[in-house]
Structure formats: C-alpha cells, structure tokens
C-alpha cells in the first residue's frame, strides 16, 4: 500500500509539472480538447518513436490516454498500431533489437526510466492478445495464475470468481472450473483471457485486436464487456474494425503509413487523435476522412 501511495504522490507532482509544461509549450491544436484535457492522464506520449534494429516502425507519436476511457488505435496494416500498443506495457522489450525513444509517461513516471522494472509495469498494465491464448490448464488455474505468481494466495476462490464475473464468463463456466480451458469456444477463451488479466487487478488493459479471431456474437459480448470494464479500468484497443472503434471507444487515434522520398523506408505516423465522435463524423484531416469513410485502406 505504501508503495502505491508514494507512486500516486510522485505521479501527482509529475502531472502538475506536466500541466505546467503543457501551458508553456504550445501543443498542436488538434490535441487540445476542453472537456478531456482536465481529466487524469494514464499515459502521456511525446515524440515517441519505436525502432526495430535501428529502423523506425512508428515515429513522432504524441497522445494522451485518459483514465476510464476506451482509447482506440485505428489505421491500415503496417501503420504500427500494435507496435505502439506493445510499448505501453513494455512487451516490446521482449523483441531483440527493439528500441523506444521519446517521452512515454505512465501516471507521470517515465515508463522507460532506468529504475522501472518491466515485470512490475506489466502487473499494472495488462494485455489481451489478438488470438485467445489460454494456458493449457484448467479454467480455474488460468485465472488463478496471475494472483498466484504475485503471491496473492488468500481468498483465491473469491478472486477467481470476481474476475470471471467481471469478464461476464462466470455463469457459463461456474460448473466446470476444473475442466481444461481449451474446451471453451473462441469467444469464451478470449473472455477467459480478459478474466485472467483483470484477476491481477491492473490499472490499464491493452487489447490487441481482441475480436479479430471471433464471430460477430462473441465480438458483441466482448464489446459490451469493454464498456463495462472502463468503469474500473482504462482501456487501449487496437482494432482493424472501424465500426468497433466507433461503437466502443471514447477517443480514437488514427495512424497511417508514411514513406520516405525514395519509398525505401516506411513507418507509422499519427495523423489525428480526437474524440471518437469527431473522428468519425467530422475529422479535421482529409486522410482520416478518406480512411473512415472507406475511400482508402
């Protein structure tokens, strides 16, 4: 608990400092929004660039992710959405040759600071993957895995039940908690992965195209779930499905592929970041409008 408080304390100071900086520095106009800029920021990205073996995958990303929002990252294939998402819980550290430059603050703390342990960061910032990846264990053990490795072994049954209820899966599996998770349908497996994630009580959940391997009914359930979960967590979702972004997200970032002059190198660039409604009804950038209206991509 003490550690949490001290983190919150330094986080507040850093946020105040960041607010001052923001007041002084004139930030691009499209990132200023009266209603949302006052809200608590979970992530603040400034000039973030990700490189694989020295080659840029995304460049110049500047965006703020707010608490209890669903923030969607959309854009064509290869625009670096997933790469960007994987920066946020330091999963990119696992790829040899990956490097993150620029400023990436998590509750005001430099997420890539020398004292930050990526393992600790991942406890706070959970992740749900594109393809459901349950462990080859029972449903119960899948959900209990996180709490167990974190040493939270008291009231494990209650934790598991709470997580499964939170992922809207409890009623479907409560009578077969001991059966293998591989026996569940794809949609159930994905909700199990969400339950597994919320069982460690993270602060943010990152979702990397969580519905792309699922049928429309399962997709609908997970979308409903996201809207429920944002009461408690902040959610960042990468999606190929623009309707999905429009349905579930509060804020949407549109990324595009950019080429250099001789078209040898390509990287992702943030085109527009705004309230979802604005992105889909009245975007400021022509490229966004072409993309969301289906003219390109």
């Amino acid at each position, binding site marked *: 608990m003490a550690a949490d408080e001290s983190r919150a304390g330094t986080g507040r100071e850093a946020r105040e400092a960041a607010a001052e900086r923001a007041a002084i520095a004139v930030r691009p106009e499209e990132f200023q929004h009266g209603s949302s800029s006052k809200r608590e920021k979970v992530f603040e990205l400034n000039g973030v660039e990700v490189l694989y073996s020295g080659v840029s995958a995304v460049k110049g990303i500047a965006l703020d992710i707010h608490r209890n929002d669903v923030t969607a990252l959309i854009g064509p294939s290869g625009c670096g959405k997933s790469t960007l998402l994987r920066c946020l*819980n330091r*999963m990119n550290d*696992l790829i*040899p040759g990956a490097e993150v430059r620029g400023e990436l603050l998590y509750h005001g703390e430099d997420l890539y600071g020398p004292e930050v342990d990526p*393992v*600790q960061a*991942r*406890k*706070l910032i*959970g*992740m749900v*993957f594109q*393809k459901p*990846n*349950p*462990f*080859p264990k029972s449903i119960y053990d899948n959900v209990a*895995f*996180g709490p167990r*490795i*974190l040493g939270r072994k008291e009231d494990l049954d209650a934790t598991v039940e709470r997580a499964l209820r939170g992922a809207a899966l409890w009623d479907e599996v409560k009578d077969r908690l001991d059966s293998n998770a591989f026996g569940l349908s794809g949609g159930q497996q994905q909700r199990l*992965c969400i339950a*597994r*994630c919320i069982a*460690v009580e993270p602060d943010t959940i990152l979702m990397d195209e969580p519905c792309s391997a699922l049928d429309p009914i399962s997709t609908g359930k997970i979308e409903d779930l996201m809207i429920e979960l944002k009461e408690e967590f902040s959610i960042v979702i990468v999606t190929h499905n623009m309707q999905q972004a429009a349905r579930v997200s509060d804020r949407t970032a549109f990324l595009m592929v950019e080429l250099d002059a001789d078209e040898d190198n390509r990287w992702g660039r943030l085109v527009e970041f705004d309230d979802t409604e604005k992105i889909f009804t009245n975007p400021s950038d022509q490229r966004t409008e072409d993309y969301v209206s289906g003219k390109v991509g």
Partner: protein
Amino acid sequence: MTMGSERATPRNRLAVAGARATTQAMLRDQPRGDVIRNTLFAALLLLAILIALAGLVALLIQAFAQGASALSIDLFTNGPSSIRPESAGFRPAIIGSLELIAGVILFVVPIGIGAALYLEEYADKTRWWNRLIEVNIQNLAAVPSIIYGILGLSFIVRGPLDLGFVLAAGSLTLALLVLPMVIIAAREAIRAVPDSIRQGSLALGATKWQTIRRQVLPASIPGIVTGVILAVSRALGEAAPLLLVGAAAFVTFDPEPFSGGYTALPVQIYNYATRSQEEFQALAAAGIIVMLVVLLAMNSFAIWLRNRYEQRW
C-alpha cells in the same frame, strides 16, 4: 422458340450424345503405361518396407528358436556360471543394467533439461558461440559409442574423476553418450510450446523464470519424458562403451554403485554368445529375448505417452 423444343431436335440430341461420348472417353482412357508404372512403384515401396521388417522378424525368430528352451525363472534369479549352463542366469547383469539406467536418468534429466532450456529460452541465437554449441550437440549425437567408452576410461575411470572400474563410472559414460539425444528431444518439446503462452504469462507480470517454470516446462514435460525414455533404451542396449569402462563379463554378486565389479545385460549376452557350448548360445538368445521385450515395452510406453499427453495447440 422455347428451350424445350430446342433440346428436342434430332440435331441437338446428336450433339449432346457426341459431347458425352468425348467426355467419357477422356475420363476413362488412362494410358496403359501409367497403370504399369504406378503398380510397379507401389510394389517397390512395399518391398522396401518388407526388407526393413524382415531383419527384425529374422532376429525374433532366431532368438526364440534358440533361446526358448533356456527361458525360465532361473534367468532372473541365478548368477552366471561357467560350468553349469543349465541353471546359469542374468541376475547380476539385470540388476547392474537397472542401476546403470537409474544413474543415467539421475544425471541426464536435470542436465539435459537445463541445457535445452538455456539453448531455447536464454541463448541469443545471433551469437556465433551459441550456434556453434547447437551444431556440436547435433554432432555429438552421431559420435560412435566406443568413443564415449574411451572418454569414460580416460576421464571418469582414470584421470580427473578417478572413480575406478565401478558401476557409477559406467553410468556416467552412458549418460554422456545419451545426453545429446536428451537435449535435442527436450529442445524440440520446449520449442513446440507456442510463444503466445510465454507472452500471455509475461503480460500478467510473471518473470521469465516463473514463465518457464510454470508454463513452458509443464507444457513440454510429455515430450521431454518421451525423449528421456528413448535415450535410456539406447543406453540399456549399449555394450561397447561399458566394456572399456570395466563392465566385467563374470560377476556372480549383485553389483554396488561405487565399489567392486559390475556387469550389464548386453555385456553378459556378449559373453555367453562367445562361448562354444550350445547351452550358452541358448542362454545368450534367451537374454536377447529379455532385452528385446524390455526395449519394445519402453519404446511403446514412450509412443503411448507422446500420443496421450501431446498438447495440440
């Protein structure tokens, strides 16, 4: 003009019949040469597998014909004898083989799994020394067993370890012989665990070691155990390296791991087979039957285990 009247004209009927005849001819008229070639090829393949099987069948028939008369409980309870072949048996050899195998397992399981985990989970494969280690492990698996016997003689029996001609030295020598097999099998089992499992675990805040210990290892255990059983059954059948590291042919007492002489089943069989009396030939054949049964049982168990617990991702 309607379709019906069009179809009914004699000219159309003739055209349809002609087209059908052409289609039938094309479908049915396989060139004769093709038929012969196909049959011939299938027959050759069948012959290949029959030759492979013939060796095994011949061995079984030969062993049973010669050894059936010597098959009795005496084989398991009595020691060897040079004067009374009718009651001589394999007891010290069987116990020696079991102890050798126990030592091999004790040595090979932790080191084999450890080496495989290092190579699969920790080694940076872009580094030349890690690639060199990989290639060398592949090569070691193909080194003739007698070479390991010489190694065991100079480094384990004598030299740095200086254990003497004892069963533990034989065990260590066999362990070195099958270690590359175990490492290769364990690596394959570890590699079969998909990365999505590792990522799922790491994303929950598990450390690398927790991920390996609680996800990767449990998921790869069936494959590793299968590899260990196959390796052990190879160690069980080896005579050549044991001859160099002190497995004596004539041991009448139950062998001890760290003192006194020892023997093993294949060595005892070799000894009986080289004697001129017909009774000893029969004893050797009976020993071969015992060993074949044990080896086939172990290999079948390994195959069953692999099919039963293999994880389909």
